[in-house]
Every structure is written in structure tokens, then in C-alpha cells.
């Protein structure tokens, strides 16, 4: 969970920056996790990447394709 979340944020950072945005321009996140028992684990990584004025967020526990443990759906301002 921790390593997947870190990888997602690192990739997301590159993707947003290439689109003229950045992690601190995110306005909304849908975080999907495979089991709600991992909620605090997600939060620990999450805090490191959006430490201040975090985006609006909704977390839900769902079945994710291909066996992944976490998936983020993000909207950011340019």
C-alpha cells in the first residue's frame, strides 16, 4: 500500500507538471483503496505529498482492477 501510494504520487507529480499544473494545484481527489483497514496507511503517505491546504477528498473501499491496492482519481487546476 505504501509503495503503491508513493509510486502513484511520484507519477502524478510528473503528469501534473507536464500538464502545467502541480500537486499543490489539486482541487479534488477520489481515493479508492482495496480495504478500509489501510485507511491510515494511505493517510500517512498522502500527508507527505499534500502537506498544506490539502484538496477536497473522498475515500472509498472498492475492488480495483489488476490486483492493485490503491487508485487515485484527481482533478487539478492548471
Amino acid at each position: 500500500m505504501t509503495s503503491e501510494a508513493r509510486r502513484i504520487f511520484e507519477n502524478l507529480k510528473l503528469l501534473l507538471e507536464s500538464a502545467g499544473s502541480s500537486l499543490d494545484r489539486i482541487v479534488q481527489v477520489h481515493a479508492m483503496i482495496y480495504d478500509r483497514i489501510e485507511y491510515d496507511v494511505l493517510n500517512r503517505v498522502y500527508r507527505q505529498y499534500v502537506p498544506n491546504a490539502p484538496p477536497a477528498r473522498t475515500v472509498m473501499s472498492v475492488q480495483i482492477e489488476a490486483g492493485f491496492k490503491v487508485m487515485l482519481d484527481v482533478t487539478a487546476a492548471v
Partner: protein
Amino acid sequence: MALSRQVIEPSNPKVDPSRKFNLPLSPAVRGGDFVFLSGMAAIDPATGERARGTVAAETRQILTNMGELLEAAGSSLAKVVKVNVLIYSMLEYENMNSVYREFFPTDPPARTVCGVKLIGGQKVEIECVALA
């Protein structure tokens, strides 16, 4: 030109779970001409505690709090364009709908409803995007 991004503080800080439970989220963020709300669980505005109840009661409390949060952001329920409703069991779909209809009687927003496992043990969680 960069679009504005601004965190919105609720007028009643008791309904801000990010402060109460120290969560890494803002209740609402304005981005450009839209306001994005975090998923809201039913919170009693008087105490700040979770208002656990039936799906109908939780839906009513959430949408009441949502209206106030939107107004703090200079928006309103009438300006909501998209709603996502998360519900613990789709068997309760109509119980949610019957209350939902009262809050969006005409020209309701676009909406998606999903049956999911919710994090805090609540039965309903609702988020939305509205025009600022």
C-alpha cells in the same frame, strides 16, 4: 493565466471532520469557477459528532450540512452540477432517493450512486461539484 485555487472554511467549524479527526483533506476547495466538496458523512452540527442513523436520516443531515458549506463558498445547492452518492447497500437506494428529491426538487444535478464500503462506518457519504 493560472486558475485560482482556494480552500473554503465551513461557517461552523464543528462540521469540519478534517480538523476534528486530523485528516489530510479540506472540506471544500474552490478551483476556477467550481467548488469541489469532500465526501461528507452525517455530522451533528451542534456537537460535531457523527450523526449515525437510518439512510434517510443520514442523507438529510448530509444534504443540510452540504447546503451550508456551499453557502460558505458563495455557492448553493441550486448551483450543484454533479453529485456522487456512496451508499453502504444498494438495497437502500430508494430510502436515499426519497430524501434526496426534497433537496433537489427541480432540474437535479448529474449524479452517480455507488454501493461501496465506507470508511467511518457510516451508511451514506455524499460529495459534489458546484458552480462557485
